[in-house]
């Protein structure tokens, strides 16, 4: 056995190599973003306006409702509900940032890399492909956190949203498990998008508004259950996207489970956290298999480097 073979099969070496790959792939997203300051404006500040529009919708409804009331107690209830709905929008807007990043910078990324000619370089490199996807995910999470944070800060400072966090540890756990599950889904999509070729771009575009709707990014998702059989079907389908359960749990942990009379939550936080862990594991395993299958298929059919297909 040659010294090169010994070195390559050494576990410690392989772990180090893959960790370096993660750092190496995350690097351009973290550092590249910092070298392009206009990114903060375009990706951090401009999207806040879309969220502001949804906030003003609830404000408009709230004002319209209050205009018809005279009882101070009823007015207070409407105000509390309106504030909780605005907080719902702000939290949803935070998650929108991560979902868009998963779609456009994770799921579409391998296809994008193929189009610009980087994919063959990745395939020739000696690291595990999952390390490559892991690096993309870590870098993407960092990039997106800036936007997510700016949404949260704007929510608190501009829209006066108040969060009541009774269990910060559970909140952190739910948040990170949601991110792992979301990016696991993105890693799985990354391989599938390679298979689907040009349809990938359109699929990503298609997974924006319909997912914002089915996952309840701008309203408590359990409200879908009140909308009849079709609403329940949409809510159940939407629950396969980790953002749905993650948002519902985060909203319970930051608004209090008694918000909206405690009637508009999907499941308890513990159950949602357990389901999210399951989804995270499932998507990471599926991503691993999808990547291996796609690589084999693309090599066999000779389409790994074929562009614009």
């Amino acid at each position: 056995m040659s010294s090169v073979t010994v070195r390559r099969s050494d576990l410690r070496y392989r772990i180090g190599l893959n960790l370096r790959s993660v750092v190496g792939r995350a690097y351009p997203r973290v550092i590249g973003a910092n070298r392009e300051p206009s990114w903060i404006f375009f990706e951090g500040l401009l999207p806040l306006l879309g969220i502001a529009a949804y906030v003003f919708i609830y404000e408009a409804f709230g004002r319209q409702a209050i205009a018809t009331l005279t009882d101070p107690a009823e007015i207070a209830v409407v105000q509390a509900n309106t504030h909780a709905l605005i907080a719902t929008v702000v939290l949803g807007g935070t998650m929108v940032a991560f979902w868009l990043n998963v779609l456009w910078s994770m799921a579409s990324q391998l296809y994008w890399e193929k189009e610009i000619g980087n994919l063959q370089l990745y395939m020739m490199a000696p690291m595990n492909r999952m390390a490559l996807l892991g690096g993309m995910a870590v870098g993407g999470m960092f990039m997106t956190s800036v936007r997510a944070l700016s949404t949260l800060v704007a929510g608190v400072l501009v829209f006066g949203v108040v969060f009541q966090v009774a269990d910060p540890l559970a909140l952190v756990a739910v948040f990170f498990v949601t991110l792992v599950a979301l990016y696991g889904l993105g890693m799985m999509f990354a391989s599938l998008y390679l298979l689907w070729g040009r349809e990938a771009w359109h699929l990503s575009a298609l997974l924006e508004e319909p997912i914002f709707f089915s996952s309840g990014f701008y309203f408590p998702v359990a409200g879908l259950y009140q909308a009849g059989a079709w609403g329940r079907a949409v809510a159940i389908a939407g629950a396969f996207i980790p953002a749905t359960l993650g948002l519902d749990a985060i909203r319970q942990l930051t608004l209090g489970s008694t918000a909206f009379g405690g009637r508009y939550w999907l499941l308890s936080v513990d159950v949602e956290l357990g389901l999210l862990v399951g989804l995270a594991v499932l998507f990471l395993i599926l991503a691993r298999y999808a990547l291996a299958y796609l690589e084999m298929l693309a090599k066999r059919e000779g389409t790994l480097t074929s562009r614009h297909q």
Partner: protein
Amino acid sequence: MSTYWRTFKTAAWLGWEMDSNWTEPWLFALYSIVKPVASAFILVLMYFIFVVIGQFRPEDFNAGFSYMYIGNAFFIFVASTLFGTFQVIQSDREWYQTIRYVYISPISYYVYILGRAFSKIAVASFAVVITLVFGAAFLDVQIAFGLEDLPLFLASLVLGIGVLLAIGICLGGISFLTAKHTHGLAEGIPGIFYVFCGVLFPLSVLPTWAQPIGQAIPLTYWFDITRRLLAPAAAIDTTLTGYSDGAILLLLLLSSVAFFGLSVLIFKTGEHLARKAGKIDMTTSY
């Protein structure tokens, strides 16, 4: 002039092919419907949740809901037209990497972008009609449109889209110089109009400092006249009742001309600076 027309036609055909030939026609039609309908459903659910949680009577909010729904339907034009124009430079530059070939060909790149945007406007028109019909048929959106209003409606529509194209070209001029910010722009710039132009809620809901901003954007008047023509019964204080239909049309005409001039200026400046800095065919892959 014939060169411009030929460029426009060819670019429009190219745009249509790029938008639609990735799949079967029926799937493309479905795709074109699902996005706007889902977007409308987000608003429907927001309205529904508010009414259910507060245990209000839905009829008390019907006028506000119709206002919001119609505004949202016509906002499809804003998002599609803006995206259709400014994304051309970035997709040709970063994705297809063909900008250098198109750019050096003997055509007007400005007209080429307009042509590419045309297919997006055509698809958007289809989506707007579907959304409005769906709303009127299934969601009790109050639409009352008389044929006598058709000329005024078409005139305002053409002028509104003209303003949008000009704004899109302005953004295109800027994107000559920026990195791959297509999605930030696609989300953010329409977001400005979403908030300030009274698309989903009357301007009176905005803080007092923000209302003059809305009144200074021509699209605010376009949305207002469109709603006056489609839902005349909706008694909502839009803060624009002092403007007659004719005054709004004139304002849109003047805005179209002004924004066209501005778009040429910004486009040429961006193009000049990008050439000077060697950025015409740069790629920025993170």
